[in-house]
């Protein structure tokens, strides 16, 4: 497909090449590959390893979806997108979904014609300062110099926060996390603000992590969600329910280790049976086969496993589950029932 377009356009007249076919699902199946828009480099969420393979929490979500749809978690092509290009890339069909720490907001959902189908991570904007500054609350930051990543919701939140508290600040907008981190650690700004998860990830990588504190105030709601194009409901359903399957798996204790065993024969819990395809025809309703959820879970484990492997307490990033714990454990992650 791509090749025909590549060459067709060389002849200038063939701009009508590669017309996208009817649905995203058909496209993905025909291509045999899931195009996943993600971050070019954000520790724990999406970054290429030494072999050039992208790893991270956001990428793991894509892998689960690829496993469900295509049967192979490695059939994911991660397209690194900047915060400026991500929405255009999605609406133009360059990627099938965004799994790129994208905040679900009203205007993005409506005005930008996107659909947010599942909050993969409940986040909020926080502040990180050096301990030596002696600051214990964000309310004490009047007059501070603040590093922000530009092109995100954070700069609007920041303006609102300081304005509503009657404080002034000096914004230092930066292109990406790596640049912001460098400026912060060199002391060009007093405060670094971004999503709390990003702060934790950044703090974890400092040689002197204990010299930095994340202030208690969380000034915004940042539900980071999986995003698809508006209007293709079948595809939105697949993404949404694959994500829900990962949540449900954690709820019922289905892990990558035991999923094959549990899927081998129907068990006692009918919902697990429906989820794993040993009972009913849930897969067919999505346009997939009955083992879709099994493959999704086997790819990187359930939601909790993905969390722990990439950003959890045992990793250098060391995020606690917090709001992202299951609803049964006091968090917000809650999957609708599979029936």
């Amino acid at each position: 497909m791509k090749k025909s377009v590549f060459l067709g356009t060389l002849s200038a007249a063939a701009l009508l090449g590669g017309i996208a076919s009817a649905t995203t699902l058909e496209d993905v199946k025909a291509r045999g590959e899931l195009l996943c828009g993600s971050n070019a480099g954000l520790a724990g969420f999406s970054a290429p390893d030494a072999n050039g393979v992208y790893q991270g929490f956001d990428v793991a979500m894509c892998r689960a979806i690829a496993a469900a749809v295509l049967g192979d978690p490695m059939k994911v092509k991660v397209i690194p997108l900047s915060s400026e290009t991500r929405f255009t890339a999605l609406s133009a069909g360059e990627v099938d979904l965004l799994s790129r720490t994208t905040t679900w907001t009203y205007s993005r959902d409506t005005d930008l014609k996107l659909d947010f189908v599942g909050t993969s991570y409940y986040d909020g904007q926080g502040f990180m300062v050096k301990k030596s500054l002696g600051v214990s609350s964000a309310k004490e930051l009047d007059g501070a110099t603040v590093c922000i990543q530009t092109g995100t919701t954070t700069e609007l939140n920041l303006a609102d926060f300081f304005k509503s508290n009657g404080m002034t600040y000096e914004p230092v907008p930066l292109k990406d996390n790596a640049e912001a981190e460098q400026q912060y650690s060199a002391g060009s700004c007093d405060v670094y603000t971004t999503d709390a998860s990003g702060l934790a990830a950044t703090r974890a990588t400092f040689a002197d992590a204990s010299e930095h504190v994340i202030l208690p105030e969380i000034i915004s709601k940042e539900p980071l969600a999986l995003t698809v194009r508006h209007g293709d409901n079948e595809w939105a359903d697949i993404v949404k329910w694959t994500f829900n399957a990962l949540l449900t798996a954690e709820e019922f204790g289905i892990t990558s280790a035991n999923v094959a065993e549990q899927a081998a024969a129907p068990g006692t819990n009918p919902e697990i049976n429906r989820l794993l395809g040993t009972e009913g025809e849930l897969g067919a309703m999505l346009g997939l086969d009955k083992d879709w959820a099994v493959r999704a879970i086997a790819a990187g484990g359930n939601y909790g496993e993905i969390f722990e492997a990439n950003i959890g307490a045992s990793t250098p990033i060391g995020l606690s589950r917090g709001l992202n714990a299951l609803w049964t454990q006091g968090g917000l992650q809650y999957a609708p029932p599979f029936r």
Partner: protein
Amino acid sequence: MSDASYVREAMLPAQKPPASETGVVHWVRANLLSTWGNIVLTLLAVYVVYLILATIGPWLLRSVWTAGSLQECREIIEATWGEGKRGACFAVIAERWQQIIFGFYPRELYWRPILTLVLMLVALLPILFYETRRFSWWVGVLFAAALFGSVWGHASPVVTVLVGIAAVCLGVWLCVRGPQYLMWFSLIFPAAAFWLLWGGTVWLPVTILLGFVLGYGAYRLVSALNGLAGVIAAVVIPILWWVLLCRAAADVLQGIVPIALVELGSDQFGGFLLSTVIGVSGITFSLPLGILLALGRQSDLLIVKSFCVAFIEGFRGVPLITLLFVASLLLNYFLPPGTTFDVILRVIIMVTIFAAAYLAEVIRGGLAALPRGQYEAADSLGLDYWKAQRLIIMPQALKISIPGIVGTFIGLFKDTTLVSFISLSDPMQIVSSIRANQEWNGIYWELFLFVGLLFFLFCFSMSRYSMYLERKLKTDHR
């Protein structure tokens, strides 16, 4: 009269110049300490050099080349050089240099870009050193080395030896008979490079090249009947071929004789490979466009001329980065709904347009430098416009413009770093990605030093080549 004692009969041997006028002392005095101002300048210069060395020197000296992470690096440096000492951690480069150079290209397929690069040098030789005929030996050696090197370590020993023998034979043959065929090789090189880099079936580039052959054939056949119809046929038939039949024909041929390489997506291109692909294809495709624009700008046809002026000034007037944003954000608005195509291709299109505007001005300079007599001579021979351009004007104008073209290319190559602003994996973006990794987070200077050094080596040698050419061309015209 014999007494002319005031005239010396035997010459005294020349005395040695005084010690202060020769040797190192004199050189230092004359060059460094001739006046007070000069002394001040010298001292300043020495101080600047000392400052630079004193800052960077120790850091470079205490470098570490093997470590798994920045943390490990720091520990090694502290262990070797003492507490609190800092040094360069080049281990990151030892681990990740392939990514900076090849991006995410599969490691076992590195031979493909390398082979492409060497073939590119071969293809460029007749253009770059068109005056010397001695290059044929270089071609032979390069060819043999390329084929041999690309197979080395990737195939069984028997295949390696066979290919080695074949490569040597081909090289020798090229040395003896080569030069006249090299031009043809230069012409088919773009298709070959495309096939090597992106992979897929070999028949697609072949059928695309066939389009040009068809066009030429149509021109020869039809222009015998009617000149204008010939031109139209030469344009329309290849386009029809490319749009309608090319792909199908390639599929059929692939079905009959399957020859294909592993197909790779554009997302796997990165680092200097990406920069080179964008830079080289930008300059290659923009050359014909630039020539047309330059001619259009000099044309007597008012509409054509004003269009060309608007095009050139318009694209020279905006920063490349906005054009890249257009490529990544807006191109989809300007194309029929549902059209999607590769982001690298979109960037190449915009870069081509941008470079064409600059090249048009370079070539216009070349055209302006030609003496008026050349045009008049062409006219007096009865050549029509296109023939005059093709046979008389362009060969000379392009020759004069080569340094300018090389300069544009260097600028373009450096500007490819801007694609990191639209998240393509150019060297700068790769550096960011590496820094986002747990192990290498916090590393800074080493990576930028490496990237800068590679850019420097490439651009510096290009500019030296361009100066060499300039000198050479100068003598031609005096």
